């Protein structure tokens, strides 16, 4: 990378293993403000695990995380949120049985001066944010369980941007969505990008993310195969990286790159 700016996020030489299996092995990725980086790889390549270390769901065995060039201490999801890192999980981590406003504010509820939940204020703010994201959304009184996949996704995204996230992690953001909803999420990503938010997009399907991403980082068997700017490589070349670990000439190889004979 020739970029002289400080990366928003830099994950250096991260490793984690579960019971002897190296889920992530010496992986390094970075992300700049206003940039979308796609993290690609097969199922089980270690993408989600790597990113869960950033969002505080897992604790790394080795390596370091820098936010704006400063070493960051991330031990749990609360720590990550302090650094402005918000995550939208593959499983759409929403609490199914409470309504949209409660989900938006889960863990950070607004409270009245008496210490009770300020539901009206939360609902008012939720209506405002959801109105911006998905103007058709009206089902504020119903538990999230009753919503469609796209509506649940917009709740999850609203939840992430509500607290002025600077770093947004989206794990398979469109996996559960139809074509129209996928396009909506694409628009949203562009909008967030313009606001200077750095976004990690995680996907096993290159078609989902290739057009949205500025760069791709490919993982295979827990290791980083390589990084590339999307303008420098073709989809086929990236597929080669994903499937075989073959690094095209304009990409920067990582520790997981296939050793050329």
């Amino acid at each position, binding site marked *: 990378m020739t970029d002289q700016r400080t990366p928003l996020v830099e994950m250096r030489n991260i490793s984690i293993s579960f019971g002897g299996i190296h889920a992530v092995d010496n992986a390094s990725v970075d992300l700049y403000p206003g940039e979308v980086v796609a993290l690609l790889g097969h199922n089980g390549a270690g993408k989600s695990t790597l990113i869960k270390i950033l*969002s505080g*769901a897992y604790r790394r065995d080795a390596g370091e995380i820098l936010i704006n060039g400063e070493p960051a201490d991330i031990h*749990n*999801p*609360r720590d990550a*949120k302090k650094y402005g890192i918000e*995550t939208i*999980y593959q*499983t759409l*981590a*929403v*609490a*199914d*049985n*409470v309504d949209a406003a*409660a989900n938006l504010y*889960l*863990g*950070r*509820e607004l*409270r009245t001066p008496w*210490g*009770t*939940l300020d539901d*009206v*204020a939360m*609902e*008012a703010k939720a*209506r405002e944010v959801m*109105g911006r994201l998905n103007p058709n959304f*009206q089902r504020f009184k119903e*538990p999230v*369980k009753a919503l469609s996949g796209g509506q649940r996704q917009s709740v999850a995204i609203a939840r992430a941007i509500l607290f002025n996230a600077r770093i947004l992690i989206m794990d398979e953001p469109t996996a559960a969505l139809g074509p129209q909803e996928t396009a909506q999420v694409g628009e949203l990503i562009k909008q967030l990008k313009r606001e200077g938010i750095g976004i990690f997009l995680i996907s096993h399907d290159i078609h989902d993310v290739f057009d949205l991403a500025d760069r791709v980082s490919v993982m295979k068997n827990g290791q980083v195969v390589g990084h590339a700017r999307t303008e420098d490589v073709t989809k086929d070349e990236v597929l080669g990286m994903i499937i075989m670990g073959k690094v095209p000439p304009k990409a920067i190889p990582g520790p997981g790159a296939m050793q050329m004979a």
Partner: protein
Amino acid sequence: MADTTNTAHFNRARSAAENPVKRFFRATEIDTRLLGMVGAMLIIWIGFNFLSGGLFLTPRNLWNLSVQTASVSVMATGMVLVIVTRNIDLSVGSILGFVGMIMGVLQAELLPQLLGFNHPATWIITLLAGLSLGAAIGALHGMIIAFLNVPSFIVTLGGLLVWRGATWFVTSGRTVAPMDATFRLMGGGTEGSIGATASWIVGFLACVAIVASIIHSRKQRKRFGFPRRPVWAEYFLSGIGCALVLGAVAIANNYPWPTNIARKYAEANGLAWREGGLFIAHGIAIPVLIAILIGIVMTFIATRLRFGRYVFAIGGNPEAAELAGIKTRWVTVRIFALMGMLCAVAAAISTARLNAATNAQGELDELYTIAAAVIGGTSLAGGMGTIAGAMLGALVMQSLQSGMVLVGIDSPLQRIVVGVVLVTAVWLDTVYRARAK
């Protein structure tokens, strides 16, 4: 705001397409499930009234029913939170027994030595000690469940055995009696009731509170421009709420003291005694007031506080709650500690009512408590349940039991009926929920 007008149009369009019954329920926002339960209970009441030749729906029986329900319904409010987080507590009956025994020994044997008999502070010291002990036992269970990852079923099954055994060891199986005179008021009876005037005052205060809360919620909705209930629905809800409260007070005030007690009271106070004359009303029993107060506090905790929000979020999706930064383990510990405290309240009510602490106190109460919560709509799959539903569930269970006693059904058959009703109720609920989707 353009948004809200759109919503209003949308809602109006939708409600126009519905039949009047559906429109009524949407407008009043009455929980149809809860209403179904009230209906089932009324059927049980009327059925037993018919079978017992008019004995069931008398002020006396209904008053007794309310007192008998108090202890289990107090515990059921806590069981809702436990079950909502996909846990179970099988130890509540044994905790009740153990805490009751400790409180019994404290007030009947230890404190009199220090303070003298019937000292005014005895009851409060005893109660506070009991509450702390209950909370400590519950917290211990909660910590084992949350931090050592032992399933709650096993931890509390162990607790069921451990605390029942411990109860025996406190006095080597001896029954402790009598209880402190003030403490005894928590158990109800003629003295443990607040009388007619105070009951009416409580009733009117409750009505004021109902109307005030409806007005407040309407104002809040207006302030933020949310859809509101139609005005007639607000009047209707206020009216129904007040009618129920005042009706219940009227019933409690129609149950007079038994003749002997009334005569003794009349003699002691120099009142004129005519045969069959003196009518002194019981009014609301103190244990019932305690249970209602606990129900209100628990509803407040479950719906208005962050803790309650977390309880339900954890029940809906534990992983999501954890990822949202909720300290799920500590929430679990606090739920079980709260459950333990409620067991202590129930222990106070039941020892006071019996005027003794016995070895077998609270046996099988865990099952009635769980049954009350489940009949009251708490889903064993987690995430769903209401405090009011559980208390109503406790009332349904107790109605069945005391109704069967009135009708003279043998006790083995009573258990069979209770078991069958429990299974049927949950089955019906499953059907209802499947259809609601």
